């Protein structure tokens, strides 16, 4: 790796961090406005024009709050919990391809931090680690409500990881690669995976809701039963980290969904409108973000429309409906591939 690539990658990492943090920040504003719209209210209006400075005000408030660590809590693990939540939330963006390559002055800029050939598995690896934030924080709080929330978070995440992984296998069978870049490249133009795998998309989307602890799967922080779930004892910026990590996770899962099923940075007629490759790459980044914002909106739409599940319903949905459905999907996909190749009989 030469020096210029190193600079490229460093700048890209900084930009991706900044963009994901800002998007997550304004997702909180979007969530308030959308919730207000769904409930026929106005939402935040006072901080800045149309309440646009509200996220900054919220952040400032969280920083100023008193920092409380419970007396009986395990201090090291109490601090480790939100740190892990934030770390794992920020790690996934490394393998997401944000756009086609840019060419400037005979120099090629790749809009992806790391194109590893196990990109998709890397995403799953980080997702499977994400549960430690809630689990460790909830246990270290030394509070029964926190512990209940932590246990719920762990069992929910493990259950839905299975269906999530199985739903992706049909996509891997279609593309024959685990690299996210390859998967996106194969969906050039309007040849998106959603047309071939609508069921896999539905399963993946439901699992993404469950993995990000969003309603209707927000039982780990179910306030009517568990006060605040695993973050009951948290205050100040540690609470802020937990809440913020959820919004970053939402941004990242929206990006993964768009990349896997909705063509990522591809858009219809991209090869026939006759623009230069740089313009198409930049337009592609724009389209990718439009898709991501749409999915963030969809996450919020679901949250303010569907009531929370009961715990047994959640487990039933995961184990008895989603997992068998995704296995059926794998079998059908395999059969169709074999018939197309003509090697079934």
């Amino acid at each position, binding site marked *: 790796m030469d020096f210029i690539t190193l600079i490229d990658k460093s700048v890209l990492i900084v930009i991706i961090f900044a963009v994901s943090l800002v998007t997550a920040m304004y997702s909180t504003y979007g969530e308030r406005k959308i919730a207000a719209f769904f409930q026929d209210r106005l939402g935040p209006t006072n901080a800045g024009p149309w309440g646009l400075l509200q996220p900054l005000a919220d952040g400032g408030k969280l920083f100023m709050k008193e920092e409380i660590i419970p007396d009986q809590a395990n201090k090291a693990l109490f601090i480790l919990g939100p740190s892990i939540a934030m770390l794992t939330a920020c790690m996934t963006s490394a393998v997401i391809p944000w756009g086609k390559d840019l060419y400037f002055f005979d120099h090629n800029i790749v809009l992806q931090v790391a194109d590893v050939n196990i990109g998709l598995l890397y995403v799953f*690896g980080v997702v499977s680690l994400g549960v430690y934030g809630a689990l460790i924080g909830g246990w270290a709080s030394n509070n029964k409500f926190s512990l209940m929330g932590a246990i719920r978070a762990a069992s929910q995440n493990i259950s839905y990881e299975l269906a999530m992984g199985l739903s992706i296998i049909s996509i891997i069978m279609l593309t024959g690669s685990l690299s996210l870049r390859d998967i996106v490249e194969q969906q050039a133009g309007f040849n998106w995976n959603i047309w071939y795998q609508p069921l896999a998309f539905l399963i993946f989307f439901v699992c993404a809701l469950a993995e990000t602890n969003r309603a209707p799967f927000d039982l780990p922080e179910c306030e009517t039963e568990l006060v605040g779930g695993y973050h009951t004892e948290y205050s100040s910026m540690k609470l802020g980290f937990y809440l913020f990590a959820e919004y970053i996770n939402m941004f990242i899962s929206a990006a993964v969904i768009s990349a896997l099923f909705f063509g990522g940075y591809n858009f219809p007629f991209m090869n026939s409108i006759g623009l230069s490759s740089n313009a198409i790459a930049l337009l592609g980044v724009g389209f990718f973000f439009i898709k991501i914002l749409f999915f963030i909106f969809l996450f919020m739409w679901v949250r303010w429309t569907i009531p929370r599940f009961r715990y047994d319903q959640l487990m039933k949905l995961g184990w008895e409906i989603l997992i068998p459905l995704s296995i059926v999907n794998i079998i059908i996909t395999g059969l169709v591939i074999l018939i197309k190749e003509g090697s079934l009989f």
Partner: protein
Amino acid sequence: MLSISQGLFYFLSFISVLFALMVILAKNPVHSVIYLIVTFFCISGHYFMLNAQFLGIVNIIVYAGAIMVLFLFVIMFLNLNHETEPKTPILAKIAGAICGGMLLLLVVAIFNDTQLIYAQNPNNQIGLIKNLGLVLFKDYLFPFEIVSILFLAAMVGAVLLAKKDDKTKQSDII
């Protein structure tokens, strides 16, 4: 002079041995589990250095991500404290010390007869997911399927055990 990969190898090995020791030396079982997770990460690092990316990432997903969560889960339910810790009789302590000492003797004897070599992959493409899949599903298909059946049997057995408990309870009520 060490090359970068050799330096990384020794660094990773040092960290993995250190954290493996911390697992057994830590007083708090939850800390032990967290040290064990770090150890798994180091082992995955070794896999990555041998270009066995699939093995490395699966090690993280399965061991660090799933099995250790279940470990933590169980330990959190057990509520292990110093007060509830059972007292070990002096005889058991002596027996433990003797067994440990003999194991140490064995390890020292083994190390005495081996030469230390720097671990190297004979073929650094073999660990890539494509090659691994071809090997598993072509050359070793039969053992692979046998292992799957073994896993399936274990899963069915676990479900059966859990169900059985439920049934007896119901019949007790009736």
